């Protein structure tokens, strides 16, 4: 069965500091990985996904199949990045999505 692990419940960083939100997954097939974000009083929404290999709001994430990781990174944190971040795994051929437990990012001014 697939599993997504986010080891940190809370990550506090100062504004301008680098950010790395960790995500590890377990799945025997070819995974499709996503990062979702939930800002205060807003609904959960897609931030980025690995197959797009894009940078969104300065965030990037690289899929490392050897380490089964999909860490989310940003070189310089901004206050508006404060939110709840969820790593998610979608298994190929089926639309079921498995979510990690989430990491709350707090950017300190």
């Amino acid at each position: 069965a697939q599993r997504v692990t986010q080891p940190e419940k809370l990550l506090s960083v100062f504004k301008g500091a680098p950010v790395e939100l960790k995500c590890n997954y377990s799945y025997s097939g070819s995974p499709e990985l996503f990062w979702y974000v939930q800002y205060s009083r807003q609904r959960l929404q897609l931030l980025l996904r690995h197959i797009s290999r894009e940078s969104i709001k300065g965030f990037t994430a690289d899929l490392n199949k050897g380490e089964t990781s999909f860490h989310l990174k940003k070189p310089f944190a901004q206050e508006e990045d404060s939110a709840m971040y969820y790593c998610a795994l979608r298994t190929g051929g089926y639309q079921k999505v498995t979510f990690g437990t989430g990491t709350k990012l707090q950017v300190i001014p």
Partner: protein
Amino acid sequence: SAVISQKPSRDICQRGTSLTIQCQVDSQVTMMFWYRQQPGQSLTLIATANQGSEATYESGFVIDKFPISRPNLTFSTLTVSNMSPEDSSIYLCSVIGLRTEAFFGQGTRLTVV
């Protein structure tokens, strides 16, 4: 993208009663998903609702407790039956877009007293 309207946004219910949550999507979708998000925990999939067939429930969730309707390709309901305080949670409706990303409703915050 898909726009999902979910209601009610919140409710406070007496134990032993039932609440039906509605989810409306602005486009036709094959599958709709219902999640539960308990305080401080991740999203847990309750069931997958397919139009024209019975919903598929995940381990730990049963139809008697969480009956689901899916009358057409844009609408679904989830009922939380015979509620207890342990059912207090946020319930979310979700669909998968054409680019395989998930879209979510704003959630229903349920408090059972």
